[in-house]
């Protein structure tokens, strides 16, 4: 199995998955705490729109999906605030408009639909070194953001109004969090696909929350479980010759069931 790591695409895949596994679940904690779970559906559809646009315009799909998702969350956050409506509800509208635009691009530019829909499965082994570097930098940025703003994030997640009265600029912090979620979802879709990204984003925080007594505990627990699922799932996929995304999701699900049963006892 080790000799497979000497192959550049597989080596790059391992590095990227390890970085993603250790840091992406941080945004899963954000999704839970800000009750933004519907947001990721909008972002998944946004990524498909980005993919369709990139194929239609023959530009880099990796960066296009990120750009589209960033624009979507900015519109969503702005609309939600100005209409004083729940962000989850607004994201439903943007989800629908995204997928409709995606199909318009596919139809009008004769984009092969199956190429766009490969985003649903992810494509871990086709990453360029630039993309690997980009994901690495983002992972560092995410971890740094969490560390530097840990106190303010704790206030934001506890109660936005209390955070506001404590002098924290909760509005800017909220925008920053939503932008980070958008980028994470776009990157996770590239790595393990839209259908299985919850295994990397959401299951680690869910498992960590079983024992966590503080935000710090939840973040650290999520990062550890995310790292275990990503690296373990990757090695499992090589050993058993199954897709990495499936093995990560299967491993995370198995861990969830075991921990759930232990807790139940």
């Amino acid at each position, binding site marked *: 199995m080790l000799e497979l790591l000497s192959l550049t695409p597989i080596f790059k895949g391992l590095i990227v998955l390890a970085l993603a596994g250790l840091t992406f679940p941080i945004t899963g904690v954000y999704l839970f*705490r800000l009750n933004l779970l519907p947001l990721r559906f909008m972002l998944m559809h946004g990524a498909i729109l980005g993919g369709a646009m990139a194929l239609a315009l023959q530009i880099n799909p990796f960066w296009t999906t990120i750009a589209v998702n960033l624009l979507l969350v900015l519109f969503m956050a702005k609309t939600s605030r100005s209409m004083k409506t729940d962000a989850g509800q607004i994201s439903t509208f943007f989800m629908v408009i995204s997928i409709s635009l995606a199909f318009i691009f596919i139809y009008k530019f004769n984009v092969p639909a199956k190429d766009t829909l490969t985003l649903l499965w992810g494509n871990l082994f086709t990453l360029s070194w630039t993309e690997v570097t980009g994901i690495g930098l983002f992972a560092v940025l995410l971890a740094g953001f969490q560390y530097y703003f840990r106190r303010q994030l704790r206030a934001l997640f506890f109660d936005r109004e209390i955070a506001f009265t*404590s002098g924290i600029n909760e509005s800017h912090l909220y925008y920053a969090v939503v932008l980070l979620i958008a980028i994470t979802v776009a990157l996770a879709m590239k790595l393990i696909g839209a259908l299985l990204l919850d295994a990397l984003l959401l299951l680690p925080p869910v498992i960590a929350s079983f024992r966590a*007594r503080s935000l710090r505990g939840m973040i650290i627990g999520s990062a550890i479980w995310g790292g275990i699922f990503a690296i373990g799932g990757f090695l499992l996929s090589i050993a058993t010759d199954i897709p990495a995304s499936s093995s990560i999701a299967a491993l995370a699900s198995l861990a969830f069931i075991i921990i759930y049963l232990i807790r139940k006892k």
Partner: protein
Amino acid sequence: MRRTKSVNLWPNINEALEHSLIVRLNAQTVFTSDQHWLYPLFELEDFLKHSELSTSDLFLSDKIAGKAAACLIVFLGIKRCHIELLSERAIPVFKANQIEFTYDHLVDHIQCRTEDLITDKMNISDAYLFLRKRAGRVQGLSVKMENVSVRIEEKLVINQLNFDLGRGEQLIIHGANGAGKTTLLRSLLGFIPIVDGSIKIGDYFVGSDLWKVNRSIIGYVHQENIKNNFPISSGEVVQIGLGKSRISKSETDYRIEVAMRRTGSFHLIEQPYHSLSGGEKQRVSLARCLCQNARVFLLDEPTSFLDQQGKDGLLLLLHELSQNEAPTMVLVSHDLQWIEQLNWPRKELKGGRLC
């Protein structure tokens, strides 16, 4: 009229005072002050807070004392004193509190407006709080609403409302459900924009750029009915009060401990916040406001989810806060029985106005 009488119980201190105020323990001078008016006594209060001296063992010599100074001397726990120039109005205060006193000169009254303002209805605590406010030794800031109107979905909830609270004063706003009490608090906090008028907290107009930078002067305690299971300890909730200030860990821990001890919640520091009772959550929330160094406290229906024991505890705590830190406090409640016991000034919000 001017009378003179000197009693030589302590002959060595009957010489002219070198300072406005001298405090001795046995023959040794432990405190002096050269300030004027009541400030030497307030300085003495600060000194005593940080010393381990027993106030009943101290002997105080003051140049001049009227009723106001007598009330402060009693409040500080001093049992023996000598006054060079004593107002007759101070004598009943000393006698009622078994203070041993002597004087050089006795006068009918001192020409001081403060002495006239201390009424016989005031007990020592009331007089102390009144004097602190008058001396500007309160944490609170003034709160002023001028012709304020607030609309919620086209409905005029607050209509040309006015009120003016001085530093360290308290106000209870009561009224029927839906009268706009919470809206009033939320507009004070800047959560709801006003359509007319102005709100001023201290020197800052709510909504102005200066206020945005300094908005942590307002501490907010909302109804503790939120089913928030966020994994956070009580100590971490109090730490939120520090906002984005970047201070050392030791200073952070110190400020959290001081605030939690002040509200009697330090034993809860490691407890998950969501597992606390309603009364404990209120204590932790007030500690958060103290840690924030808030100078105006806004409390929204603080008794909503409290049992009788919790209500009694909160009553005592608010009374202590108003006596010590003395922030300006605005409390919204419909619990008439409880606010009766709190004995703060109160106004009813009706038809969008206070009456």
